[in-house]
């Protein structure tokens, strides 16, 4: 059963410091929601309140309309990856998973399958203290998946993973969302996140700055063209007459609202040779920095 994550006017105060201030957003089934913020912006505190590890000063953190602590079988409803791959360093990977499977009421039979799935089958009998950071993160993902939960909450899960591991994690999370699951992920690897997420929540200084689908956030930026020609002034006028919005970065024209085909035809009609015509890829990092530091 798919479940929704809801933060409603969530606030956390430590003494005089308001770490999280009136945060409201939702992460819905079938979509991957990226939770973005600079260090110290309140991301981890928010996730911990959602998971019942910290008590909110005000507001509500709900999963499928219930507080985490009120969920009947939490491990079967929510899987979480927090911190840098938690495990006792003196336990083997397999023993760690069996401990958690028993604790979560999940079958021990899943342990070997999950070890295989996360690529740790050969290191299963190695102590986790000897694992690399990437291996510990894979073990953390396996731990989160023990109860086959519809909701996944992940805090910087790509830390320590190599490029292959990041691609594996991206595939796993996309498949989970495609199957109707809900994914809420925080990460500072924005380029990676941009390839994964459907919706964005941006938090800065404890307050939500933006909640939007990624496509909407990109907006016109998704069709921004970069044009360089022999006579930029004549091109500028031609593009504006055709309804384009034109600006210049000092080197090339940036055109919004026209397709590449239209720009090519307009330049041809204006008899201006084109030296460069490219489409700027949307840049989540720039959008994020603009919003986070605003």
């Amino acid at each position: 059963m798919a479940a929704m994550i809801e933060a409603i006017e969530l606030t956390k105060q430590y003494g005089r410091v308001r770490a999280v201030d009136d945060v409201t957003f939702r992460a819905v089934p079938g979509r991957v929601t990226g939770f973005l913020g600079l260090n110290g912006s309140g991301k981890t505190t928010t996730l911990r309140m959602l998971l019942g590890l910290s008590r909110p000063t005000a507001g509500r953190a709900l999963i499928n309309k219930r507080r985490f602590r009120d969920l009947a079988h939490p491990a079967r409803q929510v899987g979480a990856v927090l911190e840098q791959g938690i495990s006792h360093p003196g336990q083997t990977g397999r023993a760690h998973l069996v401990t958690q499977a028993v604790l979560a009421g999940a079958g021990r039979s899943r342990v070997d399958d999950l070890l295989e799935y996360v690529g740790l089958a050969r290191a299963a009998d190695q102590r986790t203290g000897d694992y690399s950071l990437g291996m510990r993160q894979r073990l953390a993902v396996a731990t989160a998946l023990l109860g086959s939960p519809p909701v996944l909450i992940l805090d910087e899960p790509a830390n320590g993973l190599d490029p292959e591991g990041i691609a594996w994690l991206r595939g796993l999370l996309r498949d989970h969302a495609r199957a109707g699951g809900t994914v809420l992920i925080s990460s500072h690897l924005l380029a990676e996140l941009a390839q994964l997420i459907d919706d964005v929540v941006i938090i800065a200084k404890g307050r939500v700055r933006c909640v939007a689908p990624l496509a909407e956030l990109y907006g016109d930026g998704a069709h921004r063209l970069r044009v360089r020609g022999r006579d930029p002034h004549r091109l500028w006028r031609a593009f504006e007459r055709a309804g384009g919005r034109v600006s210049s970065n000092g080197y090339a024209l940036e055109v919004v609202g026209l397709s590449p085909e239209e720009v090519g035809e307009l330049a041809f009609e204006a008899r201006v040779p084109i030296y460069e015509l490219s489409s700027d890829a949307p840049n989540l990092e720039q959008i994020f920095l603009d919003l986070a530091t605003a």
Partner: protein
Amino acid sequence: MIALLRSELYRTATIRSSWISIAVFSGLGAFFGTVNVDAWALLAGMGAFGLAVLGVTQHFQHRTAVLLYLARPNRLLTLLGQLVASVVVAVGFAAVSGVTVLAKGDLTQYRDTLTLVPVMAVFGAANAVVVRRPTWLLLGYAGWFVFVEGLLGRLTAPLPFSSFLAAGGGDRTGLLIAAAWTLLALLAAAITVHRDITTD
């Protein structure tokens, strides 16, 4: 509750440092039992306290408390499960290490010690839930025992470890005082177990 107990016991059995500690202290206790029964009783009692402290604080030290509370968000029930697990481990350790005392036929000392061991285990586990850091707790209580209970109280004042010592010697009043301190520790644990799990 049963799942939590099974998980805690499995965890103890599969962490190398834990089962090696239990095995070494059990062997040492068995040796003490052949030489001096009082020494065994002291080791069994302090061992029960130490194992309970380490069993609980390891969760905070290695951050597995996060996983514990994610799987079992009802913290009072989790506390109860940890207390029961601590008692099972402590009684098992004391019972096995005391085989030489039994062999010598000192049934009274064996019985008195095994009566006290669960109380000390609960006291240790409850304190561990409050303090969360093994070094602070063990060093703090070492200092408390030497300076407050030893030097000031002369081990006769109605304080926790003095009463544990008296109870280990079969003193019923000492056992009652020890139980009262344990109840107080339990109350503190039940209140503080709801604290946030911080990232430090």
